[in-house]
């Protein structure tokens, strides 16, 4: 199977190059046979990449330690599911996996558009196959071939990095990669629109669902990554402004801006150039995120770093794509002129525009901070990092402004909001925000950012809830339905709008959770079995931890390694306000093959806060152990908020039977041939 996979990889490249050439040629000359050949190529490349991936997984499962990649990311003792996940554990496999997902989405796009959007499809196939060809060239000729042999066979592999031996490893990277690769489809449609000159709102209408799908995967991928960091890195945080974390945030930010700005293009025929730029930049950032994850260009907690050469190849590719896209956009500038102008500062267009500017501002700030080590190395010859304080200082105020706009945008009127409109819609939400602020001040809260976040969260949440309530009530009155039925009908009749509101509600919950970090409490104590420690939470609860015992697996002789890891497990019983809430088992692990240790924290979660126990030192002889215990208020809200955002996105994504076209607009379309050389 592995050799078949290797053969498939070699076959895939010439096939993809052929497909790229015939797709563009078919589109240009109007030859349907070439276009069909190109579309078949898309499916064939997907099939071949399935074989490639299966070959790699078979090598992992079969302990084939003659392969360089398998040796470096596996060992005999590794659990089976981590061996399967070995496909994306390192740079080489990750590139294959990325290519596989991209080809899978390309196949789906070619299939669903086999009878529609035909004037775009040759160029869509050509663009996607061009990207796939580039990735295949990299895999075969840039020293990252996953099938490279050592020239001899080792008895055992070097093992998988302990930080990757966590179940989130099987979930987080695939989700994030799905988000990255799905965005290639909107990019390909944008290129097709630029090449064909059909720059009306069609390409946006066609790709809206793809953009939302990509955004969905990016969002949950980022949240999964935060959860992984929270559980695995053992410091009680979930976001470290690590370069690779930042790299996944960058395309999310620009994709979020794009999701908002396309509404202005659809409604007002504005921001066409801006939208083209955003789709190109977002795609390039997904490529940036992909290679940064595994290139080791910038040191990070993710740096299972290997090959810097590939970083420069990817940078060259990104530069080439950016230049080509810029030439196309400049060439089509006359067709991308705005049809309207913003009439007033106080309008929804204006709010959306500010939202875009802020999101792009955050993107630049994060990009600058991420690349700062490279910039300082280039200019001053020494690497300097900006660190989390820079990111927090710049991004928290921008984030709070975005939070406020999330409330203002949906209720301010399009075109020009009157003072009456503002008074009518904002009086109660502003009062809710002010009341929250007053209540928190009265309760003794003095943390500025937290006060601002909670007040703005109350303001936005009041608006979202009021929107749902008013809409449901009106629907119930008009249609004579019950409240529950009216609510369902309301959401169903405009999933995009109400799904968006649910997403906003989820983001508010996430922001609230993030602001909880202002009230973290921490105690560190050395204990022997039978001793207890107490820690108070900022929300008023008192936690008591009783250290019961320390157990450990028996380490065998190094030459007779049977376990993947050796474990020292502490047993602590946790009480909240005198009531037993469970048993925590924080661990220290030693991975003999890798000769590395890792820390597994113990977490007891409630609706409002987490009790987080980090084992520091453990003495096996005396069973003495030191624990750092944290109470982290509102952290669970980050995960709840992430779930709400995911649900809202799915509501927006859910297909509606038939296009929601009001009656007079329907069924008067004309059958129109494709203008550019569309012979049969």
């Amino acid at each position, binding site marked *: 199977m592995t*050799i078949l996979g290797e*053969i*498939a990889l070699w*076959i895939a490249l010439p*096939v993809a190059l*052929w497909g790229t050439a015939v797709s563009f040629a078919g589109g240009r000359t109007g*030859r*349907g*046979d*070439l*276009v*069909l*050949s190109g579309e*078949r190529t898309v499916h064939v490349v997907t099939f071949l990449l399935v074989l490639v991936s299966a070959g790699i997984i078979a090598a992992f499962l079969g302990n084939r330690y003659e392969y360089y990649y398998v040796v470096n990311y596996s060992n005999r003792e590794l659990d089976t599911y981590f061996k399967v996940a070995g496909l994306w554990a390192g740079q080489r496999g990750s590139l294959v996996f990325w290519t596989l997902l991209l080809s899978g989405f390309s196949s789906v796009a070619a299939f669903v558009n*086999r*009878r*529609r*959007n*035909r*004037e775009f*499809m040759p160029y869509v196939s050509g663009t996607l196959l061009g990207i796939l060809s580039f990735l295949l060239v990299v895999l075969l000729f840039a020293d990252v071939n996953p099938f490279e042999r050592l020239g001899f066979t080792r008895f055992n592999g070097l093992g998988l990095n302990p930080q990757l031996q966590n179940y989130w490893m099987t979930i987080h990277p695939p989700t994030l990669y799905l988000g990255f690769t799905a965005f290639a489809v909107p990019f390909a449609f944008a290129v097709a629109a630029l090449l064909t000159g059909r720059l009306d*709102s*069609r390409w946006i209408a*066609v790709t809206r669902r793809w953009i939302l799908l990509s955004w969905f995967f990016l969002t949950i991928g980022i949240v999964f990554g935060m959860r992984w960091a929270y559980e695995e890195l053992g410091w009680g945080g979930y976001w470290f402004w690590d370069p690779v974390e930042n790299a996944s945030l960058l395309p999310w930010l620009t994709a979020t801006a794009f999701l908002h700005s396309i509404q202005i293009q*659809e409604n007002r025929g504005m921001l066409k150039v801006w939208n083209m730029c955003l789709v190109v930049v977002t795609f390039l950032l997904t490529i940036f995120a992909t290679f940064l994850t595994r290139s080791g260009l910038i040191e990070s907690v993710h740096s299972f770093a290997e090959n810097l050469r590939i970083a420069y190849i990817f940078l060259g590719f990104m530069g080439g794509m950016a230049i080509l896209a810029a030439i196309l956009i400049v060439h089509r500038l006359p067709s991308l002129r705005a049809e309207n102008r913003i009439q007033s500062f106080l309008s929804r267009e204006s709010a959306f525009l500010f939202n875009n500017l802020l999101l792009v501002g955050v993107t630049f700030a994060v990009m600058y901070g991420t690349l700062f080590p490279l910039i300082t190395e280039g200019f001053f010859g020494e690497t300097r990092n900006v660190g989390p304080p820079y990111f927090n200082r710049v991004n928290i105020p921008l984030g709070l402004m975005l939070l406020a706009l999330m409330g203002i945008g949906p209720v301010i*009127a*399009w*075109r020009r909001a*009157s003072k*009456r*409109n503002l008074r*009518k*819609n904002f009086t109660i939400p502003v009062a809710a925000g002010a009341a929250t602020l007053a209540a928190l001040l009265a309760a003794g809260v003095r943390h500025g950012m937290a006060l601002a976040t909670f007040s703005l969260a109350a303001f936005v949440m009041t608006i979202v809830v009021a929107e749902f309530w*008013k*809409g449901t009530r009106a629907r119930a009155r*008009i*249609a*004579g*339905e019950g409240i529950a039925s009216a609510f369902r009908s309301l959401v169903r*009749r*405009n999933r995009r*709008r109400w799904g968006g509101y649910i997403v906003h509600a989820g983001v508010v919950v996430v922001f609230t959770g993030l602001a909880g970090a202002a009230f973290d409490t921490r105690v560190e104590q050395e204990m022997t079995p039978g001793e207890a420690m107490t820690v108070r939470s900022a929300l008023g609860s008192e936690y008591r931890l009783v250290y019961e015992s320390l157990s450990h697996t028996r380490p065998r002789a190094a030459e007779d390694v049977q376990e993947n890891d050796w474990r020292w497990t502490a047993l602590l019983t946790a009480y909240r306000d005198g009531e037993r809430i469970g048993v925590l088992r924080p661990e220290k692990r030693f991975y003999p093959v890798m000769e590395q240790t890792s820390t597994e924290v113990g977490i007891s979660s409630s609706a409002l806060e987490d009790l987080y126990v980090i084992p520091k030192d453990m003495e096996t002889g005396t069973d003495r152990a030191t624990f750092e215990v944290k109470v982290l208020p509102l952290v669970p809200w980050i995960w709840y908020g992430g779930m709400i955002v995911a649900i809202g996105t799915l509501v927006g994504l859910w297909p509606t*039977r*038939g*296009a*929601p*076209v*009001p*009656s*007079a*607009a*329907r069924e*008067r379309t*004309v*059958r*129109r*041939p*494709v203008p550019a050389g*569309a012979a*049969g």
Partner: protein
Amino acid sequence: MSVLIGGVLLGAGVLLFVLEPVFSGKSAPMYDGDDVFDEGAARRRVALTALRDLEYDRATGKLDEDDYGRLRTELSREALEHLGDEGDGGRAGGGARGGDRSSRALEEEIAELRRAIREGMECGACEHLNRLGAKFCARCGEGLGGGGE
């Protein structure tokens, strides 16, 4: 040996599948089928959806009469332009008589929108605005509940 044969068969199969259209002359459709995208229809849809949302915003008390009137005039003008496009087979322009026809069509459309909203004739599944008295959606066949009679 078996690997070699497998590889050759795989390559041959791939070549056959990919090159077959070129040799047989089989062609992918170069024209859109029934699912034609019409920019005019899309813009009309946007304008009419905005009008519908306006009716809802008024019904939910988010807009007072002055704002409602002002926005409705602007949106109607835009919808009218696109109805004009439609009347001319996708080209802009049209004479005064065409303009009158479009204007009447829009007024009918807005009246239908308001009536459908008021009478609950909008299909919950596909949002089609149905004729008064309909029991089932004319587009997707979904039952229209109690608002039919």
